[in-house]
């Protein structure tokens, strides 16, 4: 049996995994990254529009700061987020952008003076300040009060992962490509690494590590129509789930992006709307202002997606040979803007639709886009129930997104969580108590168990076809666990998914070899995907309220009284066909921003009994510290102690200059 030893095993070579590994490595711990694909091909690359960080450089971002970003994010989450984590995030995001700027990300920069932009369908002239010349620029995104989304044209994730992956190479961090983790090695209390399969040779080995981090991204491929890459199959989620110990949080919270191109589902960025693009119906009518007079096209994604589907149901969709869709119109932005700031969009339209978005409208319809739920961790990024298991990025439920993520907050989360959790991992490895005492018998047992499971596919003579089961699951999820959900649909979905799970236990292979074998890969993945799909469907079925992206037609209200809590799903036994659900209440009494109206979307919700009391307490504290936003915040909800020391401290802005010499030394990075 081949065993690889390392301090830190990072599963997933996207932005979160890379940044986490860099953090751990710079603290002196060896890290190995496992990746299904070369790191730079990870799905992080597909983030187009940008990364939110309250730099406030552009005129329309003036007055932006951590407080505004915090409120936008919490409102976006429909109060599902962990507010302490959101605070950690918004305070670190500007530092992350600046670190990336130093690492070579070609952020688009501010040009001083007048420029013409499109706002609400009108040409508007904005004057950028002289002192902003050359600083990182921001664009508008949905659900935000200020222009906050930093971007590199519309290839932001691409530029970011180039820079971060290159830093990982500079730090000599090995990326073991085409390697797939099949199971986490654990004893019920602590995680010791993973059983890993070489996708080229089929060989199994054990990677034994002090700390293991799941950074595997989303689970979009449990759906048929998704913007996600084909590798986003939720396998990291399944790894944690199959331990039976660590939990998945809020898996029913699935985001649908308003503008997947129709019918392929490939994403065109929110930046299209942020930069002034409009949604139109079959009559060429701009319909969003009818539903959302305030934020219009730039309400949060869950709201815009629902409004679009609602409009289609009213018969206002355009009928095409592939089905019904709406239109995204960016022709008003002009050729120059599209060719410089929306180049990938142009490329995608050109190659996949044969459409020139400079002259024609783009056919769009909402498509599955983001998995808000994931491996439940505490604020440090560690599983509360399985020591030594960490998670960061989309795979995690660190919980800064709650039930709906804002555009631009996901790539931001990847690097910010990578920075923070990287430190936690290093702290964990530093602690003597965690010195590796590897139970080798356990390691062997796990490898043999996986070996036996694989052998069963080739020998047991099962008759089920893996890709057929996968297809049925995807269709079912898209049809029944989509944007509009009902109890009946969800029950049907849960029932059918369970049957599919049972069937998946007798998959047979037409090409029964254990080496490089795509069919075998589909076979063992579909079993895991079904478990993940069940956490989504079952979680949605039980949650009888609507919150963020989770919308129940039979329970259209947000119900804080009963449901201001996080779903925790675990998978107790191998023979089970349903996850075990538990709930973790969110403490209104500690919230900096007590639940209320989001500022867009439906206005009716059922209050939590503690909300009024907390609301008046918050108002009292605000009055007491009026004029000092830092003191106010510290009094409302202290969080800085949760951050690694070097990430504490304020962020300088044009409007919040540091006086020379008032900088705490601790905030210097690059240890």
């Amino acid at each position, binding site marked *: 049996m081949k065993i690889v030893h390392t301090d830190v095993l990072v599963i997933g070579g996207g932005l979160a995994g890379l940044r986490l590994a860099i953090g751990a490595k710079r603290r002196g711990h060896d890290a190995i990254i496992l990746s299904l*694909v*070369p790191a*730079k*091909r*990870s799905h992080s*690359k*597909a983030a187009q529009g940008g990364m939110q960080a309250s730099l406030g450089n552009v005129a329309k971002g003036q007055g932006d700061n951590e407080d505004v970003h915090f409120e936008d994010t919490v409102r976006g989450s429909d109060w599902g987020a962990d507010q302490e984590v959101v605070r950690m995030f918004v305070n670190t995001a*500007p*530092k*992350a952008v*600046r670190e990336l*700027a*130093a*690492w*070579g990300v*070609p*952020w*688009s*920069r501010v040009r001083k003076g007048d420029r013409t932009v499109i706002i609400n369908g009108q040409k508007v002239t904005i004057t950028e300040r002289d002192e902003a010349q*050359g*600083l990182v*620029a921001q664009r508008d995104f949905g659900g935000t009060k200020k222009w906050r989304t930093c971007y*590199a044209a519309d*290839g932001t994730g*691409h*530029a970011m992962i180039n*820079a971060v992956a290159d*830093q990982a*190479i*500079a730090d000599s961090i090995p990326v073991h*490509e*085409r390697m797939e983790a099949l199971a986490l090695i654990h004893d019920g209390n602590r995680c010791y690494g993973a059983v890993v399969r070489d996708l080229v*040779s089929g060989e199994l080995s054990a990677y034994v590590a002090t700390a293991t981090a799941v950074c595997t991204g989303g689970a979009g491929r449990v759906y048929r129509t998704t913007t996600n*890459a*084909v*590798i986003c199959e939720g396998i990291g989620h399944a790894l944690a789930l199959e331990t039976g110990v660590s939990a998945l949080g809020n898996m029913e919270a699935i985001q649908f992006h308003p503008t997947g191109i129709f019918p392929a589902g*490939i994403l065109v960025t929110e930046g299209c709307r942020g930069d002034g693009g409009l949604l139109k119906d079959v009559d060429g009518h701009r319909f969003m202002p009818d539903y959302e007079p305030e934020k219009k096209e730039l309400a949060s994604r869950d709201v815009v997606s629902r409004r679009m589907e609602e409009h289609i149901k009213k018969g206002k969709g355009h*009928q095409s*040979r*592939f089905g019904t869709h709406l239109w995204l119109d960016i022709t008003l932005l002009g050729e120059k803007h599209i060719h*410089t700031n929306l180049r990938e969009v142009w*490329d*995608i339209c050109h*190659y*996949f639709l*044969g459409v020139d978005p400079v002259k024609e409208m783009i056919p769009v319809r909402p498509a599955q886009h983001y998995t808000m739920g994931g491996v439940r961790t505490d604020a440090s990024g560690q599983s509360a129930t399985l020591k030594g298991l960490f998670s960061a990025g989309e795979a995690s439920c660190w919980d800064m997104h709650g039930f709906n993520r804002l555009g631009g907050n996901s790539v931001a989360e990847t690097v910010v969580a990578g920075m923070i959790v990287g430190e936690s991992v290093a702290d964990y490895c530093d602690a003597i108590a965690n010195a590796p005492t590897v139970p080798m018998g356990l390691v062997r047992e796990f490898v043999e168990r996986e070996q036996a499971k694989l052998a069963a596919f080739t020998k047991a003579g099962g008759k089920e076809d893996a*890709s057929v089961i996968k*297809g049925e699951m995807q269709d079912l999820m898209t049809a029944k666990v989509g944007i509009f959900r009902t109890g009946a649909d969800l029950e049907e979905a849960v029932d059918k998914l369970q049957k599919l799970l049972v069937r998946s236990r007798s998959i047979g292979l*037409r*090409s029964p070899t254990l*080496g*490089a*074998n795509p*069919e075998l890969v589909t076979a063992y993945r579909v079993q895991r995907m079904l478990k993940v799909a069940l956490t989504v469907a079952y979680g949605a079925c039980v949650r009888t309220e609507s919150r963020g992206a989770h919308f129940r037609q039979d329970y259209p209200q947000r119900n804080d009284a009963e449901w201001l809590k996080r779903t925790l799903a675990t998978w107790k036994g191998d023979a089970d066909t349903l996850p075990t659900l538990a709930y973790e209440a969110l403490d209104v009494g500690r919230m900096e921003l007590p639940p209320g109206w989001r500022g867009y979307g439906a206005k009716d919700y059922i209050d939590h009994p503690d909300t009024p009391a907390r609301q008046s307490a918050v108002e009292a504290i605000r009055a007491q510290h009026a004029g000092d936003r830092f003191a106010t915040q510290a009094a409302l909800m202290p969080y800085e102690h949760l951050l690694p020391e070097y990430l504490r401290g*304020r962020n*300088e802005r044009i409007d919040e200059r*540091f006086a020379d010499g008032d900088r705490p030394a601790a*905030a210097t*990075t*690059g240890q």
Partner: protein
Amino acid sequence: MTMNATPRNHRKLRFHILRYNPAKADDTPRVQVYELEEAPGMTLFIALTEIREKLDPSLQFDFVCRAGICGSCGMMINGRPSLACRSVTQSFPEDIWLAPLPVFELIGDLSVNTGKWMRGMSEKLETWVHLQQEKLDFTRIEKPMDPALAEEVYELDRCIECGCCVAGCGTARMREDFVGAVGLNKIARFRLDPRDARTDEDFYELVGDDNGVFGCMSLLGCHDVCPKQLPLQTQIAFLRRKMVAQGTKG
């Protein structure tokens, strides 16, 4: 939907695919033909996935983003390296020839190890920003950068490392140590980046030989097949001038 009323006659496509699994001791390279009915809007991603699901579960190929941005699916399509995911079958005749990218290590069938090659190139050419100073304070306002320069850097940073330029390069096919247009473009990119402290003297150490910029014979295969339309011709010429100036001075 009106389309359902008039069933259309779709073309029968014939995919001629080079099959070979180097991991199997007894395998020999051969061309296998698969027939598939064309569907509207069909890309090679859709077609190959269908072939694998319905006709041959053992067929190996790589797709990740299927949106033309990750660079995983470079392959020889009717003789030219290109991204399969965004190649629409309509633009081809009924016979479509698919082969793995040459130069790179073959994993099996259409799957090649571009990742290993690119990592090796990156390590050799040190394709990362070499900071002027070790410690930076990220709480302070970032250093300004000329907006036009940032756009120029982004332009070169758009490379997706798909390997098409390498497969389309006569030099790379003859000489395995040649860094290819992808490598030269990266050097041009970091050379342009004011955050990188390296000088032409440093860059000469990396590409100032026949495995680097002087190995390029200006066949421009790279430029003509680049799926991202990077200005490789211009950049390599520019780099050649700078490296010759560096190499012949003093």
